[in-house]
């Protein structure tokens, strides 16, 4: 049975990747099961300098999901390359660096720094909803998104994946813009902007007032966008948003995703990725499917 998928020349032993912002720099969930069980890890979003992130509370429960407003807290690219990345050396899983910046120049700088590192792939984060500058501001405008990708492309020969924001009117036009600018792959969706208010205090639950919605509540939106984008671009698409069980992964892949990322589901059940892999293999066996690649994009739309 083959679970291996190839994205932008990078081989993933299976299509399950942990999503950026949900798995730190890979060490935390390694205490439950070895990271070698996973196709890949998309590591915590990085910026040129250390960022402390937003004041708490940074998280809120929502129906079938959660809001977060972490705000890209990270030690900065130097500390990552010196202190964190070496811990992943020799570990047999695809390491993806998620990179963000406040300006086009910062994105270009991140690409340059990561190009010289042993990272397997770069994921350009033009979709973080929780930062004042940069982030989703670049991911909601076709020309800005293209500028970021062009600038990064110039500075790296590493496979470059671009993570898109769902907080847009037309996801397909953004996807086409980043493809034209030189992206090797697209991942979507980042979180949807949401809000909760405590009715007793009339204060928002999050200190930032608003934050990014993830969890099963967003899955149908993510699936729809993955389907639309996969049908419109030639580069591979990685689907994420609300995946919690193996059936969700199969759905995403039938819609056109070549691989998937798992995020919020980890917080409820750290073993979600392992259980998903078991479920996928049982399903393939039952259905007589020998290669997972055979189901990618096999949706029969009306």
């Amino acid at each position, binding site marked *: 049975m083959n679970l291996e998928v190839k994205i932008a020349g990078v081989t993933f032993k299976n299509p399950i990747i942990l999503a950026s912002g949900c798995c730190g720099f890979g060490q*935390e969930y390694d*205490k439950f099961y070895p990271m070698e069980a996973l196709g890949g890890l998309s590591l915590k979003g990085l910026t040129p300098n250390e960022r402390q992130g*937003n004041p*708490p509370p940074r998280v809120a*429960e929502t129906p079938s999901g959660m809001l977060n407003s972490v705000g890209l807290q990270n030690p900065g690219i130097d500390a990552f390359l010196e202190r964190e990345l070496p811990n992943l050396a020799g570990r047999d899983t695809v390491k993806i660096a998620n990179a963000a910046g406040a300006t086009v120049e910062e994105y270009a700088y991140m690409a340059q720094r990561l190009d010289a590192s042993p990272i397997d792939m770069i994921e350009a984060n033009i979709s973080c909803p929780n930062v004042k500058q940069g982030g989703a501001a670049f991911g909601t405008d076709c020309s800005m998104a293209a500028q970021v990708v062009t600038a990064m492309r110039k500075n790296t020969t590493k496979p470059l994946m671009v993570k898109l924001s769902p907080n847009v009117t037309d996801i397909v036009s953004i996807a086409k813009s980043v493809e034209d600018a030189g992206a090797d792959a697209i991942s979507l969706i980042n979180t949807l902007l949401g809000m909760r208010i405590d009715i007793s205090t009339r204060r928002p639950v999050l200190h930032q007032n608003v934050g990014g919605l993830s969890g099963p509540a967003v899955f149908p939106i993510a699936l729809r966008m993955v389907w639309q984008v996969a049908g419109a671009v030639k580069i591979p698409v990685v689907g994420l948003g609300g995946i919690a069980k193996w059936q969700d992964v199969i759905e995403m892949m039938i819609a056109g995703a070549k691989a998937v990322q798992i995020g919020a589901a980890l917080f409820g*059940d*750290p073993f979600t990725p392992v259980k998903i892999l078991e479920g996928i293999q049982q399903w393939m066996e039952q259905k007589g499917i020998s290669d997972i690649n055979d189901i990618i994009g096999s949706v029969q739309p009306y």
Partner: protein
Amino acid sequence: MAYLQGSFPIIQKQQFNSDTYSFYIRCPEMAAQTVPGQFVNLKIPGFSLRRPISVCQRDDEVLRLVFQIRGEGTKELAALEPGMKADLLGPLGNGFPQLPPKAKVILAGGGIGVPPLLALAQVYGRNATALLGFRNKESLILEGEFAAECDTRVATDDGSFGYHGFVTGLLERRLSEGPADMIFACGPLAMLKGIADIAEKNQIPCKVSVEERMACGIGACLVCACRTVRDGKEIYSHVCTDGPVFDSREVVL
């Protein structure tokens, strides 16, 4: 140390008052690894986020969790009954530092911050003084269990039981009777700030256990931010892995 996660039977349930409950959960492997001050992250069916709840007592087989209904999740949790299972992830966090059992310690707790100190009362016994603060007589919890272990003094905001006033008042009184090696505190932020100020004034090391809205519980998601000062610089640490117990001089209360 590896984290443990699984569903474990609730073997006993107590209700203290209208909103505070005690569960005894049989989880030998996890219980054996747990130290006072650590917490578990509890999954509640139908909710996305686990709820962090500190350990009140432990032995080699059983963890005791005391919690208060704060919202929809804890309300659902309170509906669980003996015989049903609870999905725990733990033990998490750093716990209270361990002093020699003969150390003179002060345990300062307020409201639902009182339970995690009970495990310390058992460790330090008569060398501990417990100062427990509650809103009123009705919200009193665990007072008898503390009294069975150590010198126990209670304050209520409205004077309906014990000392009329706050835990800080009890602390000033206790310190007037003699020195202490360390203060362990858990409770509302205003109380912790008051305790930390008195500790500073009297040059007594003080450890505080704090809470924050949490998700993963293991340092992966970074949502449970806590303002701390390290090397003279203010940063956001994380309650789940850097805490929940911090030095009172390190955390910005």
